[in-house]
C-alpha cells in the first residue's frame, strides 16, 4: 500500500516537473523575443476613465491604451495629424465633420464607430457623471446647458447637444462659435471614446484590467494600485507593426530619490518621476538627460486694486531677476518669460514680439535703473503689500528672491504662505482683497494661445487680478471667430501687447516658461513627452 502511494507521489511529481519545465522553456523563449521597457511614473493614476481623468499621469496611460481622435505632430507646431482615429475632417464655419477610419477596433474585436464617439461624449457632458473636464465640451452647442440641467429637463437638453452620427463612420459637431483650434483640442484625452457596454456593465470598476476595453497601441494587463501598471503591446492595433516594445512596466515611484535609485540600479530605463533639486546639476551633465518644452507659464499676478498704478506694476515686473530664478532655483532649463504666451506655442515669435521685460532684472544696473525709472513715474505707489504663495520649497525660494529684488525699489513685500488646496480657494474667484501679489502657473489644456490669453478676460474664473479691459475682451472674442491663422495670430499679438507690452497694463509679471525633464538610458530611444504633459510610448525602441 505504502509503496503504491509512493509510486503515485513520484509520478505526480514527475508530471509536475515536466509541466513546469515545459512552461519554463516556453517563457524563456518568449522572453528572448519580447522587448520590455520599464518607466517610473510619479503617481498612481487617479482614474483611467477618459471622461473623469484630469491629471497628466492618468492622461499618459490613457493616451497609450486608447487611440486619440487627433494625434499632434511632435514638433513645436503641434499640428493635427491624420494618424489618429479621425483620418480626415472638414471644418465649415461652426460645423465640424470627423471621418473616422474603418479599421480601428476595440480590444474585443468590435469596430470603433461614430456611435461610440457620440455616446461617450454625451456621457462626459452628462451631469450624472459629474466630470471636471465636461467644460472641454462647452464649445459645442447645447453642451453647457445639458451639463447644468435640472433633472426635469435633462432629456430634452441632451437631445439638443450638437453632436450626431449621420452614419457609422461620421461624427458631426455643431459649435457655438467657430473655434479654429477645435481640431487640436480633440487631441485631449477627455474626447476619447469609451466602450459603453463595458462602462454600463461594470460602472466605476470598468477601468480594471479584467473589464477594460480600449482601442490603442497597448493593452492594460495589470494595475496594482500605488505599485505598478503593466501595458502589453496590442498586436491587433492598426499600427502595431511600428510599435517596437512588447511589454511596458510602469512602476509607481512617488519619491524622486527612490526613482533615481531605481534608474541607476537599471531597474527602470526611463525616469519620468521628477528630480530632487540637489541631483539636477549632476544629472544634467549625463547623456541620459532630456529636456522637453512644456506649454506653460509661471507668473506673478498683481491685484490692480492694491497696486493701481501701471508704472509701479511695470517697475515690479522689470525688477525681478528671472535669470537667477531659472538658473539657481528652477535649474532644469526653464526659459525666462517676457510674455504670458509661452515659448512652446505656435507662432510664439510673432505673438511675443512686443515683449520687452529684461531677463536680468536688478542684477544689472541697467535693469534696476529701468525699474527705478518706472517707479519714479508711479503716483502714490503701494510700498507695502502681501505677496501670497503656496508653501512648497521652490515657490518660497522664488518669492524670497523676488522680495529682495523689490526691496531695491523700496517696496516691502510680506510673503504669506498657504497650503495648496487652501491657497487655490483663497485666491478666488472672486479675487481676494487681501492679496497684493500672488504666484500661479498656467498649463495648457490645448495647444492654442487662446487657452492662455483668455485667462485675462473680465469674466474669466482664473483672473484674480481685478484687471478688466473691454478692448482686450473684444480682441479675444474676435479671435474665436477668426479661422485664418495669420489673422488670429495678429489678434493674439495685439492682446499680448495690451497685457505685457511696453504700453501694456501689466496686471501680471510673467516669470518663466515651464520645461519638463526625464532620464532615458542611452540604448533607449523614442520616448515622447509632449508639451501638454502627455507621454507617448508607442515610438520607444531599444538598441
Amino acid at each position: 500500500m505504502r509503496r503504491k502511494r509512493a509510486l503515485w507521489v513520484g509520478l505526480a511529481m514527475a508530471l509536475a516537473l515536466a509541466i513546469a519545465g515545459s512552461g519554463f522553456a516556453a517563457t524563456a523563449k518568449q522572453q528572448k523575443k519580447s522587448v520590455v521597457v520599464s518607466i517610473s511614473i510619479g503617481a498612481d493614476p487617479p482614474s483611467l476613465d477618459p471622461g473623469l481623468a484630469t491629471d497628466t499621469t492618468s492622461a499618459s496611460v490613457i493616451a497609450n491604451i486608447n487611440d486619440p481622435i487627433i494625434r499632434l505632430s511632435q514638433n513645436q507646431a503641434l499640428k493635427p495629424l491624420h494618424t489618429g482615429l479621425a483620418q480626415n475632417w472638414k471644418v465649415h464655419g461652426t460645423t465640424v465633420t470627423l471621418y473616422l477610419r474603418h479599421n480601428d477596433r476595440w480590444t474585443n474585436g468590435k469596430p470603433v464607430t461614430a456611435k461610440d464617439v457620440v455616446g461617450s461624449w454625451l456621457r462626459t457632458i452628462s451631469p450624472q457623471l459629474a466630470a471636471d473636464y465636461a467644460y472641454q465640451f462647452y464649445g459645442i452647442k447645447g453642451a453647457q446647458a445639458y451639463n447644468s440641467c435640472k433633472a426635469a429637463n435633462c432629456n430634452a437638453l441632451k437631445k439638443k447637444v450638437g453632436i450626431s452620427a449621420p452614419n457609422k463612420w461620421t461624427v458631426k459637431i455643431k459649435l457655438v462659435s467657430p473655434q479654429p483650434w477645435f481640431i487640436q483640442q480633440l487631441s485631449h484625452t477627455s474626447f476619447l471614446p469609451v466602450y459603453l457596454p463595458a462602462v454600463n456593465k461594470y460602472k466605476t470598476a470598468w477601468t480594471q484590467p479584467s473589464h477594460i476595453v480600449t482601442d490603442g497601441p497597448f493593452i492594460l494587463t495589470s494595475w496594482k494600485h500605488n505599485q505598478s501598471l503593466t501595458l502589453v503591446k496590442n498586436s491587433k492595433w492598426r499600427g502595431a507593426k511600428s510599435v517596437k516594445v512588447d511589454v511596458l512596466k510602469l512602476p509607481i515611484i512617488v519619491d524622486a530619490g527612490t526613482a533615481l535609485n531605481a534608474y541607476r540600479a537599471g531597474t527602470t530605463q526611463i525616469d519620468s518621476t521628477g528630480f530632487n533639486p540637489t541631483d539636477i546639476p549632476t544629472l544634467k551633465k549625463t547623456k541620459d538627460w532630456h529636456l522637453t518644452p512644456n506649454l506653460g507659464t509661471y507668473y506673478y499676478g498683481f491685484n490692480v486694486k492694491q497696486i493701481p498704478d501701471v508704472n509701479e506694476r511695470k517697475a515690479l515686473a522689470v525688477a525681478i531677476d528671472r535669470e537667477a530664478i531659472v538658473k539657481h532655483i528652477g535649474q532644469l532649463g526653464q526659459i525666462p518669460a517676457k510674455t504670458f504666451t509661452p515659448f512652446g506655442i505656435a507662432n510664439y515669435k510673432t505673438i511675443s514680439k512686443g515683449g520687452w521685460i529684461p531677463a536680468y532684472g536688478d542684477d544689472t544696473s541697467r535693469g534696476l535703473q529701468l525699474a527705478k525709472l518706472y517707479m519714479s513715474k508711479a503716483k502714490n505707489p503701494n510700498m507695502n503689500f502681501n505677496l501670497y504663495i503656496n508653501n512648497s520649497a521652490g515657490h518660497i525660494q522664488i518669492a524670497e528672491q523676488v522680495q529682495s529684488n523689490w526691496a531695491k525699489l523700496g517696496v516691502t513685500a510680506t510673503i504669506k504662505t498657504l497650503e495648496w488646496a487652501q491657497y487655490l480657494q483663497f485666491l478666488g474667484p472672486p479675487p481676494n482683497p487681501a492679496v497684493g501679489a500672488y504666484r500661479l502657473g498656467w498649463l495648457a489644456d490645448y495647444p492654442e494661445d487662446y487657452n492662455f490669453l483668455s485667462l485675462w478676460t473680465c469674466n474669466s474664473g482664473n483672473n484674480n487680478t481685478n484687471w478688466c479691459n473691454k478692448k482686450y475682451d473684444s480682441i479675444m472674442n474676435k479671435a474665436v471667430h477668426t479661422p485664418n491663422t495669420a489673422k488670429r495670430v495678429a489678434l493674439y499679438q495685439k492682446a499680448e501687447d495690451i497685457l505685457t507690452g511696453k504700453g501694456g497694463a501689466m496686471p501680471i509679471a510673467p516669470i518663466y516658461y515651464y520645461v519638463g525633464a526625464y532620464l532615458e538610458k542611452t540604448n533607449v530611444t523614442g520616448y515622447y513627452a509632449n508639451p501638454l504633459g502627455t507621454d507617448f510610448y508607442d515610438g520607444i525602441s531599444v538598441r
Partner: protein
Amino acid sequence: MAKFIVRRVFWTIPVLLLVILMTFGMMKAIKGNPFRHTEHNIPVAIQKNLDRQFRLDQPWYIQYAYYVKGVFTWNLGPSMLQRDRTVNEVVAQGFPISAEEGGLAMLFALIVGIPLGIISALRQNSIFDYTAMTFSNIGFAVPAFLTSTLFLYFFALKWGHFTGFPTFGWSGFHSKVLPAIALGLGPMTYFARLVRGSMLETLQQDYIRTAKAKGLRWRRVVGVHVLRNSLIPAVTAAGPLLGYLITGSFIIERIFAIPGIGQYYVTSVSSRDYTVTMGLTVLLSILIIAANLIVDILYGVLDPRTRDQRA
C-alpha cells in the same frame, strides 16, 4: 473577563462616533475644494454636479449621518480623488500591505529590542550595556527618512549585487527586509531602553531578594520573577505602537515605494479627499481601540492582581 470585554467593545461605539464627528468637523474647518487640484478653476455648473454626486450640497448633519451610516455598514463611499475606486477598495488594497510591513517591523523591534534591554540590564555598566544604549540613543534620535535613504543607498544600490535587496517595491521577502528594519528601528531602541529601565527597577525589589534568598536558581529568578514584572511597561507601549505601525508609515512607504495605506493619511488630507480621510481615521481608531483592549487582557495574564479589579 467576558463582561469586561463586552463592556469595552460597547464603549467603542460612542468613541467612534466622537472620532467621526471630530474628523468631520476638522475637515470642514480647513478650507479647500476636493475637486480642484490645479490652477484651473472649476465652472459653477460642474462644481454643482460634483457636489451633488458626493452629497456635499447637503447640510452638514445629513453628510455626517451618511458618514456614520457608512462606517457602521462598512461602506465608506467613493473616493473623491480616485474616481474609479471606493474607499473600501483603497483600504482592502493598502491595509494588508501596511499591516504586514508594520507587523514585520514590530517583530523586529520585539525580537531585537527586548533581549537587548534584558542583557543590558543584567550587565549594567558593562561594555555591552554602553554600546547597546549608545546605539539605542542614536537609533531613537535619527529620523526614519534618513535611515531609509542610507539603507537604500548602501544596501540596495551600492552593495545590491551582494545583498540582493531591490531599490524599491514590495514583492518577495527580500524587498521587505530593509523597510521593516527602517520602520522597526525606532520602536526597537524604545523597547530596549524601556525594558532595561524597568528590569533595573525590578531587580531592586524585595521579592527578587527574597527569591534569591530562598535559594532559587538565578536563571529562574530572572525568567519568572524579574521578566514577568518588567515586561508590563513594554506591553503597555506595544499595543498603541502596533496600531500605529500596521496602519503604515507615510515616510517609509514613500521612500521604499510600498503600496500601503500610510501615504493616504497625508495625500488624502492635502487633496481634501474627505471620504478617504474619514475611512482611514476610523480604521486607525478601531485598531488603536482593539490594541488597547488586547493590552488590557494581557495585563491580566502578566499580573494576576489586576484581574479581579476589572471583573
